[in-house]
């Protein structure tokens, strides 16, 4: 791939420069590493912004077609540049801060919410060996980092000094921490069987047979997709942003670039949920039964998952808050425990 070659060349150039300028080998290695980090970071950031814009466009297109409309079609071919136009508009908009907001908190919230979303991309498994940072505890890392966004939502809700924002923020947090439990528990069987929390190893374990191709895999997958949908507050779990009840929830008071950051974080989280589902259950960059591996498959799976989430939005009506809590704690949680127990028994019998 040309992009890879380019990175390679850049790194070579940096290390050569460092050596010719008379630095010791240690410092040369240090500079090289910094260059690699910058390159990878740049790539990831670029990827995120492209994907986020693409997704906004895709959401509007999908919604449009599902409602027998066309969707954006004026700016660029098929309205592809609509998102860019929107982004430019948001950037240029006047930044208004309401009078009674808790200034430092209100200002920090949109910045903090983007950080975990971006950090999660450190573990995006594009292809075998093409993982920016294949941590041994990759899954745990993503889960841990994801929980930081809760604080940001709280900050946004509290800092806005607006009762709808506060209620929206609290509902969101309650929903996220409730559905985090089944989401993690749904992944536990996979971790048990792969014996690792690293994305690379989990995907390698599925090189022939995806985790989806088993009874427990299907159950886990369904639980994960449902709780993932709830964690990113999408319909039918969009109670926190229920426009008819709470205006727009915790980001009611934001506009301009701050609002754009919330938006980016939301779509990025969507990509991450889809990425985890594809990597953990759908074999990542592998086709089933050893038919081949390519980053293209990975991206296709992620987009298929995203399409599924968008499809949900126009299929299911919104739940009531108590229904949602009961569903999470009394339905999904017991099922995922039973699933874990079943996989454990199966493993114990097999060993």
């Amino acid at each position: 791939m040309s992009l890879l070659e380019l990175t390679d060349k850049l790194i070579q150039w940096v290390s050569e420069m460092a050596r010719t300028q008379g630095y010791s080998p240690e410092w040369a290695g240090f500079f090289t590493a910094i260059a690699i980090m910058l390159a990878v970071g740049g790539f990831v950031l670029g990827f995120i912004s492209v994907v986020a814009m693409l997704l906004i466009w895709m959401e509007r297109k999908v919604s449009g077609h599902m409602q027998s409309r066309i969707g954006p079609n004026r700016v660029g071919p098929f309205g592809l540049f609509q998102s860019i136009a929107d982004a430019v508009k948001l950037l240029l908009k006047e930044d208004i801060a309401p009078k009674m907001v808790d200034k430092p908190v209100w200002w920090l919230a949109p910045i903090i919410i983007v950080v975990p979303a971006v950090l999660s991309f450190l573990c995006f498994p594009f292809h075998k060996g093409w993982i920016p940072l294949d941590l041994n505890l990759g899954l745990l890392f993503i889960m841990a980092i994801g929980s930081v966004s809760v604080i940001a939502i709280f900050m946004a809700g509290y800092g806005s000094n607006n009762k709808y924002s506060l209620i929206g923020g609290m509902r969101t947090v309650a929903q996220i921490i409730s559905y985090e439990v089944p989401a993690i528990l749904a992944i536990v069987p996979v971790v048990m069987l792969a014996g690792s929390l690293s994305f690379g190893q989990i995907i390698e374990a599925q090189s022939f047979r995806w985790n989806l191709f088993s009874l427990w895999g299907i159950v886990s997958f369904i639980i994960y997709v449902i709780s993932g949908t709830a964690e990113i507050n999408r319909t039918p779990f969009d109670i926190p942003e229920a426009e008819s009840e709470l205006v727009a929830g915790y980001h009611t008071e934001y506009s301009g670039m701050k609002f754009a950051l919330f938006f980016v974080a939301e779509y990025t989280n969507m990509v991450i949920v889809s990425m985890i589902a594809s990597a953990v259950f759908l074999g990542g960059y592998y086709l089933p039964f050893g038919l081949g591996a390519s980053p293209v498959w990975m991206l296709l799976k992620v987009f298929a998952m995203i399409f599924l989430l968008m499809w949900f939005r126009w299929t299911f009506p919104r739940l009531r808050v108590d229904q949602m809590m009961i569903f999470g704690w009394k339905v999904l949680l017991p099922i995922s425990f039973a699933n874990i127990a079943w996989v454990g028994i199966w493993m114990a019998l097999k060993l």
Partner: protein
Amino acid sequence: MTELFNTALTPWEWTQLISFYGIAALMIVAALMVVTLRNIFHSALGLAAVALGAAAIYLMLDAEFLAFVQILVYVGAVVTLIAFMVMLTQRASHGKLVRQSNDQKTISFIVVLSLFALLIWKIPTTVWNTTVSTGNLADAKTLGTAFLKEYIMPFEVISIVLLVALIGAIVLARREPK
């Protein structure tokens, strides 16, 4: 302290030094925020910052697993719960006019300071029985094995404690049906 700067340091060591003292300074500031700020929600945010800083320290100490668990538990659960607590009891704690510290401020300060002085005097002069790390450091697998072998009993006990705490919290917080 002086020999630290006499030796030529590698860039990695510089990185370590700078990040440690940076994180330490940040944590101390955040901790002071926790105990001094009038707005209790800001204090909670300070606690989140301390927890994140501690996670960073764990990462420096090669305790990856613990660092992620720290974030998951402290930021994801403890601080969230505290924030909920703040929201639910806001009417009692929101006013800036309400005094935030009690009558024993001075005596507490003296006692804490005496303890601090004693320890800050003793810690650098104590010879610690440290070992040079060779071989594999403890990773998540080591910890997991230890939990299920040597520490199985405390592990079970802590599970029961968590369960009991859960039930107790529900029972306490539940509104009595009239």
